[in-house]
């Protein structure tokens, strides 16, 4: 039950494999098809940011229990350049790279709980949960 999925993200292949594994992980944990797809899409956006901005990083998926039942927790960390203004990064249409932005507001909406911590020069950590 407490089996974690821990993956290092260095290449695009790592990223796409992890997205696929996320769907399977969620389904195996008893999550429905649509929420599983949303968790996997959130992971896809987050690992894309890792490759684009930090170069490499890691992701851990866990099954969690809460008041509202069971769910999936995503923890994504990198030692990249970090985000100077986290509040601005959570505004829609904010972009620190090219026109695509970081997609973080989207990730927040796809998940039920979301937190972003970042220190410029040290890295970024995103924690997010979705309840079944």
């Amino acid at each position, binding site marked *: 039950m407490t089996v974690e999925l821990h993956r290092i993200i260095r290449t*695009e*292949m790592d990223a*796409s494999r992890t*997205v*696929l594994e996320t*769907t399977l992980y969620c389904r195996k944990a008893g999550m429905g*098809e*649509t*929420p*599983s*797809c*949303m968790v*996997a*899409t*959130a992971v*896809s*956006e987050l690992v*894309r940011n890792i490759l684009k901005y930090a170069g490499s990083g890691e992701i851990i998926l866990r099954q969690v229990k809460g008041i509202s039942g069971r769910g999936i927790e995503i923890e994504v960390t990198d030692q990249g350049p970090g985000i100077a203004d986290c509040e601005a990064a959570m505004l*829609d249409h904010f972009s620190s790279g090219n026109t*695509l932005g970081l*997609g973080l*507001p*989207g*990730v927040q*909406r*796809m998940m039920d709980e979301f937190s972003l911590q970042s220190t410029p020069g040290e890295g970024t950590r995103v924690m997010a949960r979705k309840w079944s």
Partner: protein
Amino acid sequence: MSRIEYTNVNDSREITVAADVPRVAIQVSREVVVASIQVDLDDDVLVRFREDLLQRVHDTGSRGVILDISGLATLDSHEFAALRRIMTTSEILGAESVLVGMRPGVVSALIEAEADVDGLRAAFDLDAAYAMLEQSLLVEPETRDDVATAQDCDPPVFLQDAPPGVGGQE
């Protein structure tokens, strides 16, 4: 001297990458180019897919393109934006494009990600997509008939409705 060497290295590397890139299956059926996307849409795949698709549309003169993504478990905002750019490009080539087979989770995620879905043509399955394309493309033979009829008409009769300046040229 060094610049030429650099270019050569770059070229050979590109060729190596291209040879390994999986291709999206593209076929032409009922004058419509149908692409079934079953592989992960990384950047190399997308670039190659766009080239293949546009070439096929150009070679066949197809006026419709169907992108079947029912094989995709997820589609993130970046991949979706890339697909839309490919759809726009094929439209500029003269082929209407329809996205087919989006799963409920894919749609939900795209909406949450505030993906740009303005003007997107989408259908439930291949049959619905063909129906959609036929509806807009079948208008064409009628329009052609109209044009042909107009040309067959006696020019003075046809030009009666034209603005005075245009009609006066005869």
